[in-house]
């Protein structure tokens, strides 16, 4: 059954507005998605009815808030098919999750001379924490090269893997190119040499089915706000035995079992990694965004987005001066491009003048831009609420802009 886009659009109040006198066309979904009314209302309801601190209170509100909070954890567990709730840690977002792993797993298990493997298409948040760790531990960061199409060079990856590799940290879907990486195969190969694998799923969770048990990844991180959920919230999944072996991260609040001035004992997972009062309202509201996705089904969402991607790609490819960046065979609904002779910022501003919101710049992937020898790109990224008529307007606007320099 196909998706009724008009009905879906009616669930997103933000879409129904004008920008510079034109109806808003929101194509910056890889940066953040818009939120359905159910998420917004759940957030308001929490503050109106249930606001309370969780896990410790002896009163009704605290009990209610705790139950809803833990319901969300259960929903996340089901969403990525983890074995148990204890493997789900709420973080501030993808970046926070990666930093947590670098600071705890990294501190304990990465030693001098060990190697960490990432790819050329990583976001800065999957580069910098490892650089910092490598500097501290005198470990070595190695980078898997990519093809001109924006795909990992498999042989190069195999050559880089060795007994020294302790961790492979790899993006599932590239935010700048859209490329979907063969993470299941990467994980299997990495495990053969005894390395652990972290999957940065920030750009894939809203488009692709995620099954952490099937993938067999050791860690997986993502953000709620790219999943039609609240900002400032994310998830770190980790296998129980690894999370248990990792030292705690931040000290205080929920993460302790008992504190005396002589000695502190730490709580069980996941609480060991959730120090302080968490982002309770947003965690509770997040469940509504997962419900929204589950009701539609990832398969139907992906089918619709694939259709939009193919439609936009074929329309844009007709334009003289249009230069796509990233043409991998397997992509999420991201089109990154440049127009000959024009700076991406200028293109972005001209599209904004038509009410079309896109991202421009290096997308926090500067090494990737260097690989392609460009300063940045214009990026249009589609979500389930986008439709073909919006893409027609994008194509028409890009064609008009390209004409300035490509007559």
């Amino acid at each position, binding site marked *: 059954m196909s998706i009724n886009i008009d009905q879906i659009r009616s669930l997103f109040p933000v879409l129904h507005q004008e920008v*510079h*006198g034109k109806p808003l066309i929101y194509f910056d979904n890889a940066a953040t998605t818009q939120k359905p009314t159910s998420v917004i209302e759940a957030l308001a309801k929490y503050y109106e009815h249930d606001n309370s601190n969780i896990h410790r209170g002896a009163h009704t509100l605290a009990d209610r808030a705790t139950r809803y909070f833990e319901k969300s954890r259960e929903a996340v567990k089901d969403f990525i098919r983890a074995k148990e709730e204890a493997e789900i840690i709420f973080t501030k977002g993808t970046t926070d999750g990666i930093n947590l792993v670098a600071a705890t797993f990294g501190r304990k298990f990465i030693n001098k001379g060990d190697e960490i493997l990432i790819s050329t298409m990583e976001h800065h948040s999957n580069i910098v924490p490892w650089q910092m760790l490598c500097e501290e531990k005198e470990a070595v960061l190695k980078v898997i090269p990519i093809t001109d199409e924006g795909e990992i060079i498999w042989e190069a990856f195999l050559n880089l893997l060795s007994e020294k590799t302790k961790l492979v940290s790899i993006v599932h879907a590239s935010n700048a190119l859209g490329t979907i990486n063969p993470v299941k195969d990467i994980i299997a190969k990495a495990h053969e040499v005894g390395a652990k694998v972290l999957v940065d799923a920030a750009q894939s969770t809203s488009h692709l089915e995620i099954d952490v048990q099937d993938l067999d990844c050791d860690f997986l991180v993502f953000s709620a706000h790219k999943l039609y959920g609240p900002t400032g919230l994310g998830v770190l999944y980790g296998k129980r035995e690894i999370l248990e072996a990792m030292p705690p991260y931040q000290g205080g609040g929920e993460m302790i079992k008992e504190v005396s001035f002589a000695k502190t004992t730490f709580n069980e997972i996941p609480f060991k990694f959730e120090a302080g009062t968490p982002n309770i309202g947003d965690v509770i509201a997040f469940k509504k965004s997962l419900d929204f996705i589950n009701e539609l089904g990832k398969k139907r969402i992906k089918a619709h987005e694939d259709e939009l991607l193919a439609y936009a790609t074929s329309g844009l490819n007709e334009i003289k001066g249009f230069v796509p960046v990233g043409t991998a065979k397997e992509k999420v609904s991201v089109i990154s491009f440049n127009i000959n002779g*024009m*700076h991406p*910022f*200028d293109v972005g*501003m*001209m599209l*904004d*003048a*038509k009410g079309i919101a896109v991202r421009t*710049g290096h997308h926090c992937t500067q090494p990737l831009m260097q690989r392609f020898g460009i*300063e940045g790109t214009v990026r249009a990224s589609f979500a389930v609420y986008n439709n073909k008529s919006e893409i027609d307007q994008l194509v028409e606007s890009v064609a008009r802009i390209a004409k*300035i320099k490509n007559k």
Partner: protein
Amino acid sequence: MSSIVDIQNEIISEFSILGDDKESTIFYIMELGGQLPEYPESEKTDENIIKGCQSKVWLTARENGDKIEFLADSNTDITKGLISLLIRVLSGRSPEEILNADLFFIDKIGMGNIIGSQRSNGLASMIKQMKLYALAFQTKQNA
């Protein structure tokens, strides 16, 4: 030569013709950028890059008698257009005029809405750099 105030009023009236249409305004700004005199490649050094701009902006100043002339370039057409407006108002002026200039046209043409907050910061950096040049020349002239 018209005064700094007169030129700003000219710019305000040119932009008022464009009305609220953002696209026409941007096209106009880009056109203005195309009219900037060529910037010498040899001056495209890191030293001459203005900090605080998202896009690359090069700016240099030279003395012409007791006046200061500015030369600038950018790798984006819109930013070039913005610089061309600043140059139109501030180039060929004395250091005192530049230092005392109240650039009211920026608010009056609704520049913040046209270019957004990040570019507004870049524009502020350009103005600051132009005023710093004026201060340096003034100090030199008074020495």
